[in-house]
């Protein structure tokens, strides 16, 4: 039941969810970094990452246009806020992008006060959460049994924060390496902040991995017990796509679980920056692939009920 344009949706939903999760995770990291090391160090930790999130989200929006038959009509998509979750999702995504961009600009130019900038960031974050919420509700229509359950929003939010965490972790490692080449002096403080963040990120990754690993069999079991097309979807998942289903769980287990533990341990003491970096990159890559596979399954195994 997949067609080519569904690949665009896989990319769009993964990237845009990752962008939301990234922004919120970055916000949390920044908040605790201020406590630990002060505003300047916190900013140094995160300022250059912020625009990257915008680029990812921008790319996601461009990709999303490719799934439309008539992309020039895309602006009309917000006209049915009254009944269409798709309209709402687009509104929230675009708003998140715009407010996030405003925040990013304000942060870059140090405009206004911290309090005001903080408020803008909060608004962006809430818009981002609403985006993921709306996106999941697009799929929760009564005629799509495979999508019409709480598993969808759980899965979307989990993806957002799992990818968000590891993406921020990766970005922070990159950022740290770039900063350290520029200025050795900041290394120790930044490294400390980095290690602290990665410790928490790895914990988050392990927890969210737990959610995914528990959710997957529960979801498939309940689907298999469902009526007509629900059971057919479960069958597709386990038979035709069984390998992908299994492999995707293996990948996320290794990436978030095993590598997560190693990241945690290596983040406990200084001096392991190189390994930490490689572990973080690897974890992110594996989990990113796993999430792509998982989202692919989402689109590949849905079977609408009724006539075709």
């Amino acid at each position: 039941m997949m067609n080519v344009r569904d690949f665009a949706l896989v990319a769009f939903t993964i990237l845009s969810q990752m962008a939301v999760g990234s922004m919120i995770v970055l916000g949390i990291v920044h908040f605790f970094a201020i406590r630990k090391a002060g505003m300047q160090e916190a900013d140094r930790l995160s300022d250059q990452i912020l625009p990257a999130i915008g680029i990812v989200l921008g790319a996601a929006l461009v990709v999303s246009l490719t799934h439309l038959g008539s992309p020039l009509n895309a602006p009309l998509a917000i006209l049915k806020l009254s009944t269409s979750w798709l309209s709402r999702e687009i509104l929230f995504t675009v708003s998140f992008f715009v407010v996030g961009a405003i925040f990013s600009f304000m942060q870059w130019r140090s405009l206004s006060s911290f309090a005001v900038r903080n408020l803008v960031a909060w608004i962006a974050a809430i818009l981002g959460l609403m985006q993921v919420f709306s996106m999941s509700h697009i799929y929760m229509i009564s005629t799509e049994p495979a999508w019409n359950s709480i598993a969808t929003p759980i899965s979307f939010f989990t993806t957002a924060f799992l990818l968000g965490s590891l993406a921020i972790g990766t970005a922070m490692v990159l950022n740290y390496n770039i900063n350290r080449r520029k200025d050795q002096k900041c290394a120790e403080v930044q490294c400390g902040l980095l290690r602290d963040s990665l410790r928490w990120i790895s914990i988050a990754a392990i927890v969210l991995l737990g959610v995914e690993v528990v959710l997957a069999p529960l979801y498939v079991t309940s689907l298999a017990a469902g009526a007509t097309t629900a059971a057919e979807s479960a069958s597709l998942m386990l038979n035709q796509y069984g390998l992908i289903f299994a492999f995707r769980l293996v990948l996320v287990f290794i990436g978030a679980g095993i590598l997560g533990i190693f990241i945690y341990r290596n983040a406990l003491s200084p001096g392991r920056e190189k390994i930490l970096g490689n572990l973080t990159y690897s974890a992110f890559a594996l989990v990113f692939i796993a999430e792509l596979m998982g989202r692919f399954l989402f689109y590949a195994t849905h079977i609408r009920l009724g006539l075709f």
Partner: protein
Amino acid sequence: MSSQLAFHVDLSSCTGCKACQMACIDKNDLELGQRWRRVYEFTGGDWVKMGNAYINSVFTYFTSVSCQHCEDPICVNVCPSGAMHKREDGIVLVDTQKCLGCRYCEWACPYGSPQYNPTLGKMGKCNFCYDLIDAGGKPACVEACPMRALDFGPLDEMVARYGDLRDPAPLPISSITHPSVIFTPHRNTYPAGSNEGQIANKEEV
């Protein structure tokens, strides 16, 4: 809703000939792959050899489906641009000028009515031949049927005249979208959700 236009399909008279399907294709100049009205063959039963003879419980009936012009159309609800909309008289229409071709309605409709046209990048669907109706005529399919198995009119008239069966198998249950098509059952007709038969001509619909 001032009144709701409805189709009536007499399954007991339908021979599955597809004149309705072809009349629609011709009237709307549809490309191959676009079938705004389709005829489903629902077949079930089986054969058992008893001595020299074969006993069979095989049955078939045909169901002609275009769009149900639902009273609660899920396609209209989900459409982000309002391209999919419902007229005063209940006809559900695609305004192709507004359609993005996002195919959300295709995911939603349990009757397979909105169809994506790759050449145009837009959705297409039975429009009740509203241009013919507005001019006082009949939909192309209704006028074409050689067995006179298709009719149309205000929903309450159709119900009064033909009863109120709206979900014979292989259609889904009517409580999802409240379709506005009334069916007269064939002697072998089963209710929605029945496993007694299957759609036997999947490649044709």
